[in-house]
């Protein structure tokens, strides 16, 4: 049970990043490689705020704001500073932000991790199903599921969420319908950044806060997103959770040094079986 919840907690963090990447990709067609660094920045902000203020909502609000601002920064670079006609240039723009943020953090804080306190509940265990489980793991899983439901509600049942989906499907037709494309895109990036900020608060007490923490979380998150189907939010969730479980159980059965090998073997097998991901149906059209 501890293994299961540990794997799900890890996978939930992957899922948060994966959903953020999928949201941004669906809206703008750009893979945000700086998503992990937005998580890192939010984690640093969370550490410093929690050292001075003990109010959980304030800690959450400031860290989410850092993620939101980071998302808007990425939007500005990708859609305002760089030629919008070239997707490659926009992707490279996000890579530039990745390098900038990571190098800045390394210069300011070096690679020595900072300690982060567990948000709200502290570092305690709770008895569940006859097992003593870290309350933080349960909280991570719960918050991820709630966030995913909130994203579904937003995109499915609110007017603005439908506008975001419309822009994602066809910018030109959405503009014809009176939807302000640029602000809609900015909102998608901002929400993606906030999800990264949320991931930063949740994962930092487990692994510490250090400049390259984004790398170690984003790559599995991207793999999870691809496995789940890169344009599906549900796919991002399931893919992230599955990857967390795969990594945890691969460590147990094959050893820590084989973890990545097993993970990628399973990833390749899934891609061979379902090239478009587990939750994306390949569209065909009549010609």
């Amino acid at each position: 049970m501890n293994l299961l919840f540990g794997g799900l907690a890890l996978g939930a963090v992957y899922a948060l990043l994966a959903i953020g990447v999928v949201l941004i990709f669906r809206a703008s067609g750009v893979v945000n490689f700086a998503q992990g660094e937005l998580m890192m920045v939010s984690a640093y902000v969370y550490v410093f705020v929690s050292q001075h203020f003990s109010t959980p909502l304030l800690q959450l609000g400031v860290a989410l704001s850092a993620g939101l601002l980071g998302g808007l920064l990425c939007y500005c670079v990708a859609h305002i500073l760089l030629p919008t006609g070239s997707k490659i240039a926009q992707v490279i723009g996000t890579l530039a932000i990745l390098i900038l943020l990571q190098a800045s953090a390394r210069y300011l804080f070096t690679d020595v991790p900072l300690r982060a306190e567990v948000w709200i509940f502290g570092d305690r265990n709770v008895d569940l199903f006859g097992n003593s489980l870290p309350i933080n793991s349960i909280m991570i899983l719960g918050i991820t599921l709630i966030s995913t439901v909130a994203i579904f509600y937003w995109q499915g049942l609110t007017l603005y969420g439908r506008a975001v989906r419309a822009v994602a499907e066809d910018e030109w037709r959405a503009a014809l319908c009176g939807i302000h494309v640029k602000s809609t895109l900015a909102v998608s990036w901002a929400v993606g950044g906030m999800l990264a900020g949320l991931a930063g608060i949740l994962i930092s007490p487990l692994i510490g806060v250090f400049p390259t923490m984004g790398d170690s979380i984003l790559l599995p998150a991207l793999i999870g997103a691809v496995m789940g189907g890169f344009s599906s939010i549900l796919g991002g969730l399931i893919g992230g959770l599955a990857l967390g479980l795969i990594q945890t159980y691969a460590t147990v059965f094959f050893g820590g040094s084989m973890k990545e090998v097993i993970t990628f073997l399973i990833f390749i097998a899934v891609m061979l079986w379902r090239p478009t991901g587990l939750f994306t149906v390949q569209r065909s059209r009549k010609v």
Partner: protein
Amino acid sequence: MKTFRFFSAFSLLSLFNLAFAQSVPGVTDTEVKIGVHLSLSGPASFVGQGAKVGIALAQAEINAKGGINGRKLVFNFVDDRGSPDGGVTAARKLVDEENTFVVLGSGTSSSTVPVLPYFERNGVPYYVSLASDPQVMGKFRRNVYSGATSTQIVWGTSMAKFVNDNFKPKRVAMMQCDQAHCISGVPLVKGMLQTGGAEVSVFTYNSGDTDFTGQVQQIKSFNPDVVFIYGLAADGGRILPQVRRAGINAIIVGDPALGDPSVARVAGSAAENFYTFWSGGTQFIDDKSGPMGQWLNALDKFSIERPANTPNTYSTMLYADVYVIAEAIRLAGKNLTRDAFMTNLDTKINGFVAGKTPEWNFASPVGFPRTFSPTDHLGNRSLQALISVGGVFKPVK
């Protein structure tokens, strides 16, 4: 006449070239150039950043007193990124391009071991301060010396003896990362623990991993008396809380790489009663009294630039080793050559600690004594056991 002039010019040019060729690389009338390769970037950057602080302080102190025999010390730093190819590139740059007198190896084992054949071929003095891989001292090389850190064989023996004598474990769970010092050290310590009667199980991980749920649950199932962690300080800071959070109450011991204040800082209460080791002396870096207090004050006095989370344990180790090099240079007098330098290391460095000799009485006497001989270039065999109490490492008596 023309022929006479031509031969005169040719002779003069030859004499000039001969004189130039016989000058010692890295040595002028006013300075001695010492090359340093270290990890200023990458996962082991805290090692290099800390090392640079210690080197800078020693340099400042020595040069403030006029240098050595009228020559100031100049250090050329090259980032080896903690990688094998980075080490090779850095070493070649320091020797071939920058013509340094001696190279001070302040990198990890990963960046140090690959350059050993290069130094063996070129004969340039190579003073290794931090790498503990057995290959550093496994083969005797005339021009290679090991200062602050010992080899995994020597350390492993000390650590295994400490664990066996103090805890008498029946079951030991070892966590091994993918760093060079872990790959070489774990099998040695495992064998010695098994010789002491313990059942030992090894659980691997990759340095930089952030989640250890799998390994921790396996360790919990194994139910050890002692958990022995081999890795980097950053790994230790993450592993300790995850071990304690899983309800594992075993004694936790870490290899000397985990003997860093950042481990206790990051791990918080999980680091209480955590044992580790360090080869920097009997007084740990966060003890602000005595010689260490003097050393910490010197950093302020000379306004040494300190990146975040420095100084650290590597700062004191490199500080002590720079003085060892300085002493060998001083003993050579004005006729400083590489051969004289190495001969002095071999024959005159016997229990040397800067700050305890008249010539260096302005230095802080931190670090274990260094002793070399013509057949033994392992300068320090001492290891101090530490225990974390209240977030501070204290020596185990």
